[in-house]
């Protein structure tokens, strides 16, 4: 035999290193960008504006939440630890802990409001994901690929809004009414609001927006100066959650 075992192991090891090195090099140069992000024109920059004057969430309305849960097969766990949430209600002082003086907050003391993924311009969750299971589309939507997620939960540590949920257990038995038009998730992956990208693809508004009887939720394209979201942001005072972190959140709250 011309190749003894030791020699074979050396060659095999070296080859593996070369292949790994090539992959790493590709990723460092441009291979990493080729996938996921496509060369599409950034036609839109989706954003949501939530009018807190109109929103009656603090009076117990959960229409937006219920619509989202139905549309996306969001499971309901009784124990807080295993909760999965895409859009949910949060007291004003939790969502905007660092906002205003003690006196301006008087007006909002009992106020609760809907919170969801902010689909940040500069999302920390995307930055930390080791497998590109979460990434930002050209139109600004932060996507999740449930097929690829390894369940390391680094994105959950990185998100400063607590917008991400992990499937600690099999979610399917905990979905109230299964909607066959949208998949459930499997245990061991992270999930969060997708700005209803599956509905946008069909030209429909997000489920929460459509469900809001008060029309407190407005969805639109920030790149279009004539859009309703731009009109609202032009005429009303809007605040965002933790803009000082440099994440560039795209959910605006009109106060």
């Amino acid at each position, binding site marked *: 035999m011309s190749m003894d075992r030791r020699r074979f192991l050396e060659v095999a090891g070296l080859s593996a290193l070369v292949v790994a090195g090539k992959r790493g090099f590709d990723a460092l140069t441009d291979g990493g960008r080729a*996938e996921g992000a496509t060369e599409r024109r950034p036609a839109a920059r989706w954003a949501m504006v939530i009018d807190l004057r109109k929103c009656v969430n603090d009076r117990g309305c959960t229409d937006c939440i219920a619509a989202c849960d139905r549309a996306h097969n969001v499971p309901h766990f009784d124990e*807080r630890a295993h909760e999965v949430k895409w859009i949910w209600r949060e007291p004003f*002082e939790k969502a905007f802990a660092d906002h205003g003086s003690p006196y301006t907050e008087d007006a909002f003391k009992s106020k609760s409001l809907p919170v969801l993924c902010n689909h940040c311009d500069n999302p*920390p969750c995307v930055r*930390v994901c*080791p497998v590109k299971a979460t990434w930002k589309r050209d139109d600004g939507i932060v996507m999740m690929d449930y097929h690829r997620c390894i*369940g390391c939960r680094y994105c959950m540590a*990185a998100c400063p809004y*607590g917008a991400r949920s992990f499937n600690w257990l099999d979610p399917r038995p905990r979905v109230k009414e299964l909607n066959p038009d949208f998949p459930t998730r499997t*245990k061991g992956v992270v999930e969060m609001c997708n700005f209803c990208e599956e509905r946008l693809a069909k030209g429909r508004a997000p489920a929460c927006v459509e469900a809001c009887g008060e029309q407190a939720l407005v969805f639109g394209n920030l790149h279009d100066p004539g859009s309703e979201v731009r009109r609202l942001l032009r005429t009303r005072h809007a605040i965002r959650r933790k803009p000082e972190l440099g994440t560039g959140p795209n959910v605006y709250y009109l106060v």
Partner: protein
Amino acid sequence: MVALEKALVGNRRYWTWIGALLVVIALGVLSYLRQLQFGLGITGLSRDVTWGLYIAQFTFLVGVAASAVVVVLPYYLHNYRAFGKITILGEFLAISAVTMCLLFIFVDMGQPGRVLNVLLYPTPDSIMFWDMVVLSGYLLLNAVIGGITLGAERKDVPPPRWILPVIILSIPWAVSIHTVTAFLYSGLPGRHLWLTALLAPRFLASAFASGPALLILLTMVVRRLARFDPGQEAIQKLSLIVTYTMIINVFFVLMEVFTVFYSQIPEPMSHFQFLFVGLDGHAPLVPWMWASMALAVISLVLLITPRYRANERLLAVACVMVFASLWIDKGMGLIVGGFVPSPLGHVTPYVPTLPEVSITLAIWAVGVLMLTVLYKMALAVREELA
């Protein structure tokens, strides 16, 4: 593997020890199978506290692994002969510790079947990707170095010349594994306990205290069990290293405390409040954190006083204290403390569950088993030559 057969002969006590470790491992494997089937909901983790006991052990053990450099550097760079006998012990400790690190990451994954995605879709933006690179590289480096040097020792010849640059490379590499591990945490915008440039230096200081402390204890154990004497000088020099690094570590912690509390910025303060006095009526880590502090202070008294440090019995006590103090502080304290309160200000207590503890113990047992076998090999080769 060099001299693996040496690990297959041993007295009754050796086999009882191996058997006991295997039992702990078997129990952990059973718990892990349950976790695989049931999901990570079997642990005490939650939507707010997403990392816990597993990642705490991982973080702490990266430090133990990195500490091999503390014996390798003086011996190879400064030709410090007293460490000649224990460098191999340091390198083998590194191998076992890195293996435990990798196992702890693995059991923490929600989709372990997809672990190769990290290689299929390499993502240089992610610090976790780099952590994987440096950790597996470090494991490889130490396995090669340990294997080659022990093999040469066995044949009573000097190791091949090419191994020296590899050993030199392992020195900055050891620093890198703990720096990158600190970067995992210190670059996240919403986590105020971790968002500090001091995290990596703190990690290194605590690593170079806890690792050598463990190495001192291990050499003491080995000296009793085998015909092996690392030498008084080696142990005393190591204890000096532990003393200085522990002082630096406590100094860093105090600097952190000053900045956080003098600035009075609420969010960073809230994490320390949760850890040391409790927040919103939840104080699960308070006794642990004060224990860690107390152990640090007492160990420093023992270490700094030359008379106590020279007394090997007291030195052993001090080393146990250093190890335990840092295991709490850099493990559960750092990881769980970083998650509570959550970015929304919610306080969610976290207590590990029984299966979680069982899996954790099993991984420690794997590490100890590896260490036992590796040390057995190294010492058997030495005895053969003697």
